[in-house]
């Protein structure tokens, strides 16, 4: 909103220059962003919050200034020079719906001459950011800027029966508004009608064929008060936002309609000539008394934490237009003015006192407290994940959770959560998976010459419909390119499946777990069918990972394999972080035994490991695959495996006999899997 310093100063004597005024207004709640001098005029660019329609005009801001500086505010009054002819004999006003229109004041001016406005008015309007139209329309705009009250001027001769009836629209009624659009009316819309038809959408916009024309000579000026909620509903239904609706839907001043009509009539006579008929037509069927509010000094102090002197309380509120009656015991009955619909409760009055007393005058303090502070439930686990991922070389990324449907589709079996009013197709569904965002980030980096990419993201994915939504947390890993920077000290090597698996294992190792196993059932077709796995903890899937399907990599024109992992944190967190447990380190050295085996291709390592595990040999501390051989002396359909076993018994030496016996059992168990000892 543009405010002219000279205009504000017409209503109050301000003992400060414009820069100081701007600063003081800002600290009282009218945020002035800038002060500029344009064509000799000081213009303040100000933001007024939505709850303060009363301050969205020059007179309202002058009132704030009068409270800030404790100076008198000039009353807003006008007594137009009237002719002898009574207005009531020429036009009539009727309110059929007093719930939605509490007051309708009108003035009739006959014999005006529509034409350009005088220069002073044009200048002032333009400085305030409003274009001049013609003298009559300009007067209503002038009033809006000065007083904040939206007025409407009708061509009296275009009103059938010279009547104004404020009523609801009727089904089937249509009307063209000033913007040329034909609107279908319903009983939801309050309209201004003449004797025959609607001529304006009340409080929003006038009709195309009842407004001021160049040839208009007789004018009916409307200065009314409409119910905010109704105006807002109508404006929204028609998708209209006008200066008038903006004011009315935030609450206009019921008490100012008459003064506004008088002032406008006076101005029209001044700039467009004509005769102001005698008497204000003022239909006011439903006075809306504002109940007086109790304001307690104790409550002021309880909320604000500091005493505001009672004289200051009274002074501030009176300057703002409140009426007060003190009971002498630190209490007042406060009657808010008609233009302050936002003040309905004691706390609202307290705010008025606080903001004009000055927020800066309240000291800073830290509240007393006894109690405990808790972190978020999974904070420790999440931090452990983040720190481990970082230590493994992954940088944290955050990607958009809103993506395009085509990006979501390959990663979800069900319909993703869709937005009703997306900004664009590109951001119209909630991600059903952490993978598409990570792939976008990989692509971003590869396209910018970064070859080694390792990223992790911890975030939610979204699923569900109609009020039942789920937002499980996922840890995603994405990796591609060289394992280490090179090639100065070591030959470069690209990340492969087992690098990723090692990282997944390191992360899973943070958690407590009875039995962890891996199998090839990744269960998602965006993974390479032969290079993807699933990790299960105590039988429940906690992760899947592997190489991105080459087809999907090819679609993105990637030549290097890209590895991804998804860890289901809600399930993982059920296991809790692993707590270190100490066992004494044996002083007796362990015994290693190596077995050179021939294994059928169909037997995966996991089966060997379980078979050995099932033997239940307590002294068998570890079983490692040490070397795998294919081809050469090993027949096709099999592979050679060097298996290393480690036997140990705490504090006791093992005898050869024992180790031999265990070895024999182990070989027997492996033979059942079709595994043979190599000759």
């Amino acid at each position, binding site marked *: 909103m543009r405010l002219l310093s000279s205009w504000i100063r017409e209503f109050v004597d301000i003992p400060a220059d414009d820069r100081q005024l701007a600063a003081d207004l800002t600290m009282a709640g009218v945020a002035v962003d800038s002060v500029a001098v344009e064509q000799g005029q000081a213009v303040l660019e100000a933001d007024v919050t939505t709850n303060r329609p009363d301050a969205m005009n020059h007179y309202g801001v002058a009132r704030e200034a009068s409270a800030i500086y404790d100076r008198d505010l000039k009353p807003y009054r006008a007594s137009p020079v009237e002719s002898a002819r009574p207005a009531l004999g020429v036009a009539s006003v009727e309110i059929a719906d007093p719930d939605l229109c509490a007051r309708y004041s009108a003035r009739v001016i006959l014999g005006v001459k529509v034409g350009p406005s005088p220069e002073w008015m044009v200048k002032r309007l333009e400085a305030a950011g409003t274009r001049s139209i013609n003298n009559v329309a300009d007067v209503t705009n002038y009033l809006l800027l000065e007083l904040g009250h939206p007025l409407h001027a009708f061509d009296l001769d275009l009103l059938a029966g010279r009547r104004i009836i404020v009523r609801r629209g009727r089904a089937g009624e249509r009307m063209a508004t000033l913007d040329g659009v034909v609107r279908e009316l319903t009983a939801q819309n309050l309209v201004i009608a003449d004797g025959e038809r609607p001529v304006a959408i009340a409080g929003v916009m006038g009709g195309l064929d009842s407004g001021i024309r160049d040839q208009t000579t007789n004018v009916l000026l409307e200065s009314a008060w409409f119910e905010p909620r109704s105006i807002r509903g109508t404006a929204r239904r028609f998708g209209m936002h006008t200066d008038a609706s903006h004011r009315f839907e935030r609450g206009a001043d019921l008490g100012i309609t008459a003064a506004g009509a008088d002032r406008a009539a006076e101005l029209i006579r001044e700039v467009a000539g004509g005769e102001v008929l005698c008497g204000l037509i003022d239909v006011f069927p439903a006075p809306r008394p504002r109940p007086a509010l109790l304001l307690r000094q104790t409550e002021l102090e309880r909320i604000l934490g500091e005493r505001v002197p009672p004289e200051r309380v009274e002074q501030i509120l009176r300057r703002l237009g409140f009426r007060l009656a003190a009971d002498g015991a630190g209490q007042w009955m406060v009657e808010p003015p008609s233009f302050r619909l936002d003040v309905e409760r004691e706390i609202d009055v307290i705010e008025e006192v606080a903001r004009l007393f000055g*927020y800066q005058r309240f000291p800073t*303090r830290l509240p007393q407290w006894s109690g405990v502070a808790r972190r978020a439930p999974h904070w420790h686990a999440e931090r452990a994940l983040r720190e481990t991922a970082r230590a493994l070389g992954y940088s944290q990324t955050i990607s958009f959770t809103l993506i395009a449907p085509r990006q979501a589709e390959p990663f979800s079996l069900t319909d993703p959560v869709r937005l009703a009013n997306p900004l664009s197709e590109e951001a119209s569904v909630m991600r059903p998976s952490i993978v598409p965002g990570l792939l976008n980030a990989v692509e971003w980096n590869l396209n910018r010459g970064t070859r080694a990419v390792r990223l992790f993201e911890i975030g939610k994915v979204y699923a569900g419909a109609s009020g039942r939504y789920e937002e499980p947390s996922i840890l995603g890993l994405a990796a591609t390119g060289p394992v280490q920077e090179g090639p100065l000290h070591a030959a470069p090597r690209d990340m492969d499946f087992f690098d990723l698996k090692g990282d997944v294992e390191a992360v899973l190792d943070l958690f407590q777990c009875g039995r962890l196993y891996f199998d090839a059932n990744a269960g998602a077709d965006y993974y390479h069918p032969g290079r993807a796995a699933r990790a299960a903890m105590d039988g429940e899937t906690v992760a899947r990972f592997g190489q991105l399907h080459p087809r999907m990599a090819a679609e993105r024109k990637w030549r290097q394999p890209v590895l991804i992992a998804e860890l289901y944190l809600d399930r993982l967190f059920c296991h809790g972080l692993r707590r270190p447990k100490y066992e004494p380190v044996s002083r007796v050295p362990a015994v290693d035994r190596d077995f050179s085996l021939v294994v059928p291709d169909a037997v995966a390592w996991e089966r060997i490991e379980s078979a050995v595990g099932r033997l239940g040999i307590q002294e068998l501390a570890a079983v490692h695959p040490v070397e795998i051989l294919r081809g050469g002396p090993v027949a096709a359909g099999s592979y050679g495996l060097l298996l290393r076993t480690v036997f140990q018994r705490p504090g006791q030496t093992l005898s050869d006999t024992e180790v031999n016996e265990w070895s024999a059992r182990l070989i027997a168990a492996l033979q059942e899997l079709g595994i043979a000892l190599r000759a």
Partner: protein
Amino acid sequence: MKVEEQVRQTLEGLGVGDEAGVAGLFDGLRTQIERELAGLASADAGEQFRIRWLGRKQGLLTAANDNWLKPAPPALKRAVGRLLNEVKRQAEQSLEARRRELDAGSETARLAVQRLDVTLPGLRRPIGARHPVQIVIDEVQEIFLSMGYSVEEGPEIESDYYNFEALNMPREHPARDTQATLYVAGDYLLRTHTSPVQIRTMEKMQPPLRVIAPGRVYRRDNPDATHSFMFHQVEGFAVDTNITFCDLKGTLDYFFKRFYGEQVQTRFRPSFFPFTEPSAEVDISCIFCSGAGCRKCKQSGWIELFGAGMIDPALYGFVKYDERKYSGFAFGGGIDRLAMLRYGIEDIQLLFQGDLRFLQQFR
């Protein structure tokens, strides 16, 4: 007489009968040992020396033990034992020292070949970086944790009730316009702020409360350098029997001083939010120009950061708190913005691209 022959005889056979004689005998041994050690030229020779003198079966000193000490007359036994041990220990120590001297020579030559250019860069295992938004979330949490604030969370797909209605923004409320909302379906939307967590927490817990709620929020804003349809906020609030506006001021003043530095000033300006009353915009003195006025602060010397205020008593009605007994304050602000100001990041989009050239700067 050679040492070898000497040790084969007894003291008596050598004609030694008193302590002076014994001492002379051992002096001779010592001189011989030192001479031989000085003549050693290699590690092998050192080993031969050890066997010759200290060998357990054939060593000269072992022989001296057998032939001098064991049959010695009782009057001399103590002196012989003491001197024999002394000579033995000296021989061992001197041999060890001599061996080290010999080793050093050959080692120097060997290791010279292994010399590296230590000025070449090291082989670094990559370490991942923390995201700047994460850094800020962690730090904000630590600061508020130190003031007794717990952390609460809430869903991102939120109901109209928690996002608006229970925050004193009924349908048709003009303030809803200022929060361009992304709707999901029916009564569900993407939360436009973290304030719903306030209601959810107050519903399940009774005062005294001190809570912060960091999280992701959404607005229907077209993306540019300062806008993103997805960003992060932190909400904070305290409810107790003694919470005042002065406490709100002190709390945020403390927070900003901890976060941006002691020199930072805070300023509270009256504003409007439907869920607080009185409400305030919280500015900090510009961290780029210290309040003198610059491009970043649009010459005002102040940077607007948080919205805050005393919790509107209307909210207590929704969560069934006694508004006569309790009062509280609430505040909220953008985490991304805190991070952007802290690190001088000019474009919010950088935060969500996953560009390692950007991310790696936050190691």
